[in-house]
């Protein structure tokens, strides 16, 4: 299966300059997708999740437009052909 990951501009440098990545996860969950992403881009994936695997507090992940926090978190289903968008949340100072 193939999933398109859409990154914010500030993370594109960690993915070779691209804001759009085609990722081939071995399973059909968000955790599987992030594992596949980590294998290719470990520094990028560290920005998205911590070492326990948890998505960072101020990072939002949307699967086909839906915030995974209001779905099944890391167990959220990611279908073949899905678009997974990563965005920084409203935070900072």
């Amino acid at each position: 299966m193939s999933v398109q990951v859409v990154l914010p501009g500030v993370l594109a440098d960690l993915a070779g300059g691209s804001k759009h990545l085609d990722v081939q996860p071995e399973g059909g969950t968000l955790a599987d997708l992030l594992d596949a992403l980590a294998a290719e881009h470990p520094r990028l994936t560290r920005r998205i999740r911590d070492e326990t695997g948890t998505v960072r507090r101020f990072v939002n992940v949307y699967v086909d437009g839906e915030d995974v926090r209001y779905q099944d978190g890391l167990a959220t289903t990611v279908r073949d052909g899905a678009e997974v968008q990563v965005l920084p949340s409203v935070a900072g100072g």
Partner: protein
Amino acid sequence: MTDLLAIGTRKGLWLARSEDDRRTWALDGPHLLAQEVAAVSIDLRRPAPRVLAGIQYGHWGPTVMWSDDLGDTWQETDHGAIRFPEDAGVALARVWQLRPDSADRPDVVWAGCEPHSLWRSTDGGLTFDLVRGLWDHPHRPTWEPGAGGGAVHTVLPDPSSNRVTVAMSTGGVYVSEDGGEKWEPRNRGISVVFGPDPLPEYGQCVHKVAVDASDPDRMYAQNHFGVFRTDDAGSSWSSIAEGLPADFGFPIVAAPRTPGTAWVVPLVADMQRVPPGGRFRVHRTRDAGATWTELGEGLPDAAWTAVMRDAFCADEGDPTGIYVGTRDGCVYASADEGDTFSLIAEHLPDVLTVRAAQLP
């Protein structure tokens, strides 16, 4: 010779250089813009000086970065220099302290982190291992976080032995005599104001500890109320606060080459973290805390600011230079042990840490 001062702030790192024995300084930065730099060290034990920075990307989490070209380029370990092992069940929240060990242990670097944890690197800071002896200490579940978070914020490896001293908020002072395997609390005499027992075995909120130039057993502690000294490696502590206008504050710095000399920056209280009367002053002792002298030449009045625990340091120069950074983004430098200060940076973000080095 170049004197270098690394200034870590809430929103980036600046490097100040002096080519004239610390009379004038040129500021270079920002480096790591928009990243919190709460810990920095300048490791001179390598062929090229290595600047290590404990950073917080804000949205994107904490890590350690390093530069071997004095800030021109920065690198980080792919999978993270500091990662809690899976069985710990927690994630790194913040790097509070980066401390190169002695010249005899040239690749060893220590890190103090949040949550309360101590880390040891044997590759110059590229990767760190959790010091299990402290992590598995039975007291750890009862070390509570202070307002800034629960962390090992001070790491003091003794260059002449296997002793390692750490300080934590809260938790207090713990010492290992075997390089980190076994740990014991050493807080006798250090008081607390936030619990029913004023002199508990551990649990103190020790803000900073510094080692005297003359004797590794003599240390100074700025506590959450109280300034203390030990002459027996922490087995007992005595108050040395008499003569200070207030006994609250965060940093304490000991002179690296002048025995008995140390500095503090008193603040009114935990509920009023400003200098007494708004007069920003450094206080110095020359006699290991028996007496204190107020130092203010070049420091401002009407400065309602404060100094974070690592935003004060000394250099290795002769006479000792001291550097103090404030929460309103100023850095004051003294090349004469505090007799006079000059403003070398202003309008920076909150200064979180300063570290000085003399480059060969």
